[in-house]
């Protein structure tokens, strides 16, 4: 099974994967060739370029109540990497979107991506010591325009207890959603 940890650059994805994984987090690399857009484009040039994108990988193996290998994929949240997410999100049971309140706008792409694909997700607000202002879950929910049923929780990605709570909250929510598909506003395609 598979859970995606998504979030903007520096939001704490690697840290969260490392806090719960039974192996040291690994870095999986992939070459991506794409027509560049936005910031990459050179005016008047139809540029195609190969970039490398890195994903964090971790896993947890369960033997009881049944054998399950849970794979954790930490994925870059930048808009221009969205096309890499299709393989990542394929077959994902859910996603933890790590929101960095210093750059909340980085979370928008992830929220709309998983909403569009009806993949259950929770938003974990990573608490950074140097954040100028601590946002409440309610403030983050409003800013990201999340429906009431989407779980939003505060999270310290460095702390195993806090990181695993985010996973448990997600799986619990995914389980509820699978029994009551209308909570996800439509069935999974």
């Amino acid at each position, binding site marked *: 099974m598979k859970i995606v940890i998504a979030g903007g650059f520096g939001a704490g994805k690697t840290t969260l994967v490392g806090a719960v994984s039974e192996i040291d987090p690994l870095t999986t690399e992939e*070459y991506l060739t794409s027509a560049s857009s936005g910031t990459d484009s050179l005016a008047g040039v139809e540029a195609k370029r190969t970039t490398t994108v890195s994903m964090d990988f971790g896993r947890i193996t369960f033997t009881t109540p049944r054998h399950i290998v849970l794979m954790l994929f930490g994925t870059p949240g930048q808009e221009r990497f969205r096309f890499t997410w299709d393989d990542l999100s394929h077959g994902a049971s859910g996603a933890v979107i790590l929101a960095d309140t210093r750059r909340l706008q980085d979370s928008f792409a992830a929220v709309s991506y998983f909403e569009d694909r009806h993949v259950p997700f929770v938003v974990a607000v990573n608490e950074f010591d140097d954040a100028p202002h601590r946002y409440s879950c309610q403030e983050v929910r409003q800013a990201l325009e999340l429906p009431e049923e989407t779980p939003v929780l505060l999270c310290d990605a460095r702390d195993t207890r806090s990181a695993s709570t985010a996973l448990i909250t997600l799986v619990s929510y995914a389980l509820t959603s699978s029994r009551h598909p209308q909570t996800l506003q439509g069935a*999974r395609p």
Partner: protein
Amino acid sequence: MTDSEMADLDGPAWADDDAEDVRPYALTNGRTEPRHQMRLASMVVARHEAKTGLAPEAESAVALCRSEPRSVAEIAAVLAQPVLVTKILLSDLIDDGALILSLTSDATCPDDPNLLEALLVGLRRRFPDCG
């Protein structure tokens, strides 16, 4: 001279991205498509019969999935090769009969309530301190 000064002298001629791009596809004899359909989360496992005479990367891949199935993502990370290159290497090993592609891993339904419930129980046991 320090290492970083040495690196500066070596400079862009060897350190640029293009130079790095060469080797992975040399490993695949220039092929860019795996013969077997695999995803990041697809699992492969080594067959019991030992294969000899494999290339070092192939040897490492087979050794890694000797005891239990491993995902494409993990094998790629351990081999330090891009995912696509890893898929091509694994495809060859499947054709050679050194590895078997696990079909169950790709057939898993991600929103199967029974699986999610088992996962939830497993997580709560693993992390009993959590709320």
